[in-house]
């Protein structure tokens, strides 16, 4: 983008190509994302007079958000659920990426299998989990057949745990791919050198491989964490009343409750909270991270 404005520089060959490459991204960023964000920010400071875009200017929406503990509670619940999903996803994705990077012979096949669930709709995958977790579902029937339970449990479906499980499964590839890329980028000679100096395989992993792959782990964690905080389809389908997340509340303001300004304020606050969490994580990584 910077090149567009600097007229003093001589035209380099291929600059038309560069402009063409930049164009779609700029249009999307300016036209769709920034415009929508601006609209959201304006909407958040208006009050609900029954029309979609509200009227006037007020801080009332934020005052309600601050004064009612419910919203903080639901945001905290969403962060907790998303945090658990992120932890579960990264912890299970890492071994897969590690195996792919260091040991796999049929890499293309495994990568293909990893992305295979994406060939079906997300809704179908959620319903598949419903079948597994339901009262007369696969898991309950299996456990009864194995003699572990005598009667089916209602504690599997419509719980926050079901939400975590479903989301963790859905987002697994998003964590595997960035971790794999960062593992691939580590020069193999580093591990050999460490081994030559007498490090055990575990020490090599802890002191060389893991620190060097942290950027991938963090990238994967962010990619999983951010969309799951705002998810509302999954809690609606497999979570009960005790797993209502902030996405459902925002959606309700734009739907049934018909208070777009309040929904916008809620969305804005959630974005700021997510931003704060990410900044904190980056800060912690810089200070305590094991990278050299």
């Amino acid at each position, binding site marked *: 983008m910077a090149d567009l404005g600097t007229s003093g520089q001589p035209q380099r060959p291929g600059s038309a190509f560069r402009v063409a490459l930049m164009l779609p991204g700029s249009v999307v960023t300016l036209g769709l994302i920034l415009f929508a964000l601006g609209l959201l920010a304006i909407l958040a400071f208006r009050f609900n007079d029954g029309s979609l875009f509200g009227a006037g200017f007020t801080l009332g929406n934020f005052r309600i958000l601050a004064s009612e503990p419910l919203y903080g509670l639901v945001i905290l619940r969403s962060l907790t659920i998303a945090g658990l999903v992120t932890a579960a996803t990264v912890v299970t994705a890492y071994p897969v990426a590690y195996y792919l990077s260091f040991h796999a012979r049929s890499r293309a096949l495994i990568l293909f299998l990893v992305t295979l669930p994406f060939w079906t709709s997300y809704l179908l995958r959620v319903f598949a989990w419903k079948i597994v977790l339901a*009262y007369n579902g696969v898991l309950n029937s299996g456990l009864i057949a194995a003699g572990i339970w005598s009667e089916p449990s209602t504690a599997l479906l419509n719980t926050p745990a079901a939400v975590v499980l479903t989301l963790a499964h859905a987002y697994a590839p998003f964590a595997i791919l960035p971790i794999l890329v960062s593992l691939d980028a580590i020069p193999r000679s580093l591990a050999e050198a460490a081994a030559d100096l007498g490090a055990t395989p575990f020490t090599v992993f802890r002191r060389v491989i893991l620190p060097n792959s942290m950027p991938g782990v963090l990238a994967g964690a962010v990619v999983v964490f951010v969309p799951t905080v705002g998810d509302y389809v999954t809690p609606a389908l497999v979570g009960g009343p005790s797993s209502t997340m902030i996405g459902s509340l925002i959606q309700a303001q734009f739907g049934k409750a*018909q208070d777009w300004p309040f929904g916008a304020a809620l969305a804005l606050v959630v974005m700021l909270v997510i931003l704060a969490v990410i900044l904190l994580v980056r800060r912690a990584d810089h200070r305590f991270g094991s990278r050299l």
Partner: protein
Amino acid sequence: MSQKTPRTILSSLLAAALACATALSPVAASAGDKLTYFTWSGYELPEFDATYLKAHADGVDTSTFGDDDDAFTKVKAGFRPDLAHPCYDKVARWSREGLIEPIETSRIKNWDKIFPVFRDLPDLQAGPGKVWMVPWDWGNTSILYRTDLVKDPEASWNLLWDKAYSGRLATIDAVHDTPVVAALLTGVSPFDMTPAQIDIVAAKLREQRPLLSSYTTDMTSVEQALASGQLVAAMTWNASAVALKKQNVPVAFMKPKEGMLTWACGFVLLKGSPHADLAYDFINSRLEASSGQKLIEDYGYGASTTSAFDAVPKATLESLQLPADPNVALKTTIFTGPMKQADDLAKMFEKVKAGG
């Protein structure tokens, strides 16, 4: 090798996507001349439109919703179908917002066959010979429970507040259902309440939340959960009772002493619809006896026309617990009319559902 495979897959995927897009584009192009109908899920079935489809072979574009409050917001935000299917309690709101235009009763062939009790509903009137909504269906909301798992319960909505069945109850996620029942149980008028009374209703709803497995409008899931025994009782509409009885699940549709809820819904014509003529054809087709008969026999809902009831055998009506005259039903039930504080109730209900 390892690089080639994903690339080949990608290129074949792209080719497939392109082929799909090309194949679909004529369909998309012709959609402009079709009637768009926005309705409750389950009401879009072509079986209800036999006559219309005979005359207009290219069919109807349908879009469905699970709750007419959501539908209202979607239309307000710019979705423009030709016909929509809200319920009576929302009609005043649709007309007040200028979303719909009056329908001329002279162009509705079977207008006189509609039960007067529905024809004369106050919020329908849009001047001489004009109405805001043409009623098509009515039915009841009550508790559907497993007779083998809940032994002889007291006929009361309180079953959905019974701690003995904690975690095995479900209720409908709509302002015109669950909060109305909470109001009835606390002795508050559901259709006009003071802020203090809203708090009383909220307290009643808060009491129920920990006992519920879910708030939902997905009746298929509720029916499956009742059939499997995961749920022992749930708030449903007639259709679920009919569906489960057909599957020989031991269920009963309760007649609570506080009264079932009765609702009536129908067709509204969206303002400026370019397909008004098609819309009239569609409404006329739905008001034919055969269409209403299907609605009664398949779903157990009442049709709005006397002719549809005449077409259904007496024995069938009895097994469906459907009186041939809606006035009989309305003597013992609560008719869901417009709720003055609908917006405040909606906000309160959302908060309670989230745990506040």
